[in-house]
C-alpha cells in the first residue's frame, strides 16, 4: 500500500519487511514521500507579483507625501519618474498617482477579499448541508444554484445601485450573494461522497450527532478545497469588481479604485497613457499572480490524497 505513495522511479528498499503485521510493527515510512514544495517557478513568480501589489497597498500609505486626494493643478499630468515629489506622476487634477494607486489597490483588494469570504462561507455552508443531508434541502440548494447562474449580475447590481445608490457595501453584498455557486457545487459533491464513508458513520454509531460529524469530518475535508477555489476566485472577483467600477458602480469619487482610475485615464490615453496603464498593470499583477499561486494547490493539492480515493490516503 505504501508503495503507491512513492513517486515514479523511486527504488523500493530490498529489505522492506514482507509482512509488517506479524510483530505489529508499522509499515516502514516511505522516504522522500513528497517533493519539496513551493519551489516551482510559477509559484515564486506569482508570489512576487502578488507581493508587489500588497506592498503597494500596505506600505505606500506609510511613506511621507502620501496624499491621494490633494489637488495641484499646476503640477497636473506629470509622466512617471519626471517629478521627485510624484514618483509615478500625477493625474489631470494634479493628484499623486502613486498614492491614488495605493489606495485603489487597498480598496479593490479589500472588496475582493470581502466578496470571496462571503461567497465561500455561503457556498460552503449551503453545499455541505445539501450534500450531507440530501433530500429536499439538496434539491432546493441545487435549484437555487442554477437560478443564480442564470442571473445577470451586472444588471442586478445596476438595479440595486439605482435603488440604494452605488457604494462599496452594495458591491460587496451583491457580488457576495451571487458568486457562491462554485463553492456550493464542490462542497456538495465532496460532502455527498464523504457521507457514506465508514469513518463518517462510525461516530454516528458512537453517540455523535450530525453536528459533530460535519464539524470533525466533513468541514475539514471540504475546507482545503474551498481554499483552492478561493485562491482562483480572487482573480475573477477583482476583474468583475473592476469592470463594475469602470461602469461607475461601486466606490464613488474621489475614492479611487482600479476600474474607475482606468475609466478616468482613458480620456487622456493619447496625452498621458500611464493614467490607464498603471492601474491596469496592478490588476494584471494581481490576477496573474493569484492564478500562478493557486496552481500549486490544484497541481498537488492538500487533499490530493483524499481525492486519490481512500486507499492510499
Amino acid at each position: 500500500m505504501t508503495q503507491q505513495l512513492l513517486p515514479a522511479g523511486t527504488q523500493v528498499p530490498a529489505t522492506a519487511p514482507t509482512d509488517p503485521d506479524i510483530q505489529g510493527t508499522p509499515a516502514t515510512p516511505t522516504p522522500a514521500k513528497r517533493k519539496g514544495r513551493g519551489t516551482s517557478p510559477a509559484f515564486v513568480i506569482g508570489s512576487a507579483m502578488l507581493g508587489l501589489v500588497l506592498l503597494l497597498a500596505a506600505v505606500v500609505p506609510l511613506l511621507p507625501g502620501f496624499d491621494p486626494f490633494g489637488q495641484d493643478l499646476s503640477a497636473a499630468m506629470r509622466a512617471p519618474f519626471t517629478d521627485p515629489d510624484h514618483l509615478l506622476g500625477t493625474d489631470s487634477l494634479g493628484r499623486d498617482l502613486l498614492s491614488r494607486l495605493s489606495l485603489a489597490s487597498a480598496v479593490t483588494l479589500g472588496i475582493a477579499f470581502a466578496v470571496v469570504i462571503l461567497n465561500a462561507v455561503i457556498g460552503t455552508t449551503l453545499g455541505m448541508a445539501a450534500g450531507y443531508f440530501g433530500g429536499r434541502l439538496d434539491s432546493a440548494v441545487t435549484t437555487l444554484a442554477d437560478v443564480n447562474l442564470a442571473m445577470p449580475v451586472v444588471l442586478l447590481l445596476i438595479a440595486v445601485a439605482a435603488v440604494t445608490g452605488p457604494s462599496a457595501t452594495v458591491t460587496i453584498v451583491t457580488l457576495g450573494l451571487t458568486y457562491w455557486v462554485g463553492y456550493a457545487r464542490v462542497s456538495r459533491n465532496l460532502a455527498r461522497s464523504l457521507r457514506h464513508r465508514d469513518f463518517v458513520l462510525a461516530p454516528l454509531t458512537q453517540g455523535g450527532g450530525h453536528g459533530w460529524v460535519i464539524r470533525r469530518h466533513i468541514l475539514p475535508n471540504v475546507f482545503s478545497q474551498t481554499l483552492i477555489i478561493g485562491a482562483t476566485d480572487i482573480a475573477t472577483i477583482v476583474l468583475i469588481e473592476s469592470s463594475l467600477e469602470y461602469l461607475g458602480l461601486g466606490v464613488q469619487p474621489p475614492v479611487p479604485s482600479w476600474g474607475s482610475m482606468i475609466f478616468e485615464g482613458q480620456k487622456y490615453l493619447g496625452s498621458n497613457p500611464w493614467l490607464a496603464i498603471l492601474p491596469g498593470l496592478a490588476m494584471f499583477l494581481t490576477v496573474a499572480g493569484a492564478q500562478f499561486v493557486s496552481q500549486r494547490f490544484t497541481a498537488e493539492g492538500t487533499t490530493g490524497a483524499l481525492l486519490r480515493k481512500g486507499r492510499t490516503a
Partner: protein
Amino acid sequence: MRTDTPAAPFLDVLTVQDLAVEFPVRGPLFSRTTLKAVNGVSLHVAPGETLGLVGESGCGKSTLVRAILGLNKPSSGAVAVGGRNLAGLLNGRRRQERARIQMVFQDPYSSLDPRLTVHEIIAEPLRINGQYTAAAVTALLEQVGLTAAMGQRKPGEFSGGQRQRVGIARALALKPELLILDEPVSALDVSVQAQVINLLQDLQAELGLAYLFIAHDLSVVRQISHRVAVMYMGRIVETGPAADVFTNPQHPYTKALMSAAPVADPDKAASRQRVVLTGDLPDAANLPSGCAFRTRCPQAEASCAAVVPSLLPPVPTQVDFPVVSAHQSACLLVHP
C-alpha cells in the same frame, strides 16, 4: 468449530424481534413499490457468545446491521439491548444503551479518517462521550497489540491488518458488550486474517464480549461462531449451533452454500456432492410468492409458491433463561 459454551449465557445482549426495513423504490411508470431489504428477522446474541450471520451479497445483512445501529429506521419490529426495547427510550438514554453495541467496519481503509492520527481516531468516541484521557487511548492501543507511539501516525502509514486493529480499538473505547463485526477480515490478506481472528478470540475471552460476526467466508465463520444464522433475501432461513448447521444443513440454500465452500482435502472434495444453484438472486423489490428461494431451489415443489415458510420447530421465547440454541430452518420440505 467451537464446542465451548459462552461464559454467561443469560439475558441476551442483543435481541432483534421481527425486524423489517423497507425502502421506497420507483416501479415502472409512476408506480411506487417498497423494497423489503430485511423482512421479519429475529435473532438474539447472549453475553460472550458469537453468532455468525451468513448470506450472499444483497441478502440484507448490511441493512440489518444499520438498523440495529440506528442508521436505518426499521418499518416494523424491535431492537432490544440487554432486554430493553430501544424504541421506548428517550434519545439520550437510547444513545447510552446503544453504545453497548459497537461496530467494526469491513473496509479498514475507508473506516479511518485519513486526516487524523490514530490516537485521535481512537479518542473520538471518548471525546464524544466526554471520557477522553490520553492514558485511556494508550490502553486501547495496547489492548489490540499496537504501541502508544504508533498513535502519533496517520492511518496511511499502517498496513491493512494494523488498520483493522485500530478499528477494533475504536469499537472497544466505550466498553461495549457486543461487537458487530461486518466482514472484518474479508479485506485482508489470509495471513493477516488469522492474526485478526486470533485477536478477536483473545478479546472475547478476556472481556467476555459477544460478537455478531457477519461474513461470507464460511471457514472463518465456522472457526469463530458458537451459533450460525443463514440469511436469504431478507429472511433467516436456517439457524442453530454452528456444529449442527455445518455438519447437518437442512435448508436447501444452506446445503448449496456449504457445498460451495472449498474443502482442503482433495479426496473429500472429489467425493462430495455439489449443489449448484442456477439463476440470479430475485429482484428484492419484486420477490417471488411463498418461499423466496423457490426460484433457485433444486427441490422446489408447487406448494412452495403458496406459503411463506417460518422457522421451525418453534422455540419458547426466553427472557432470563439459558439460551436455547435449537436448530431451526424455514423450509416446507423439511417441515411439511
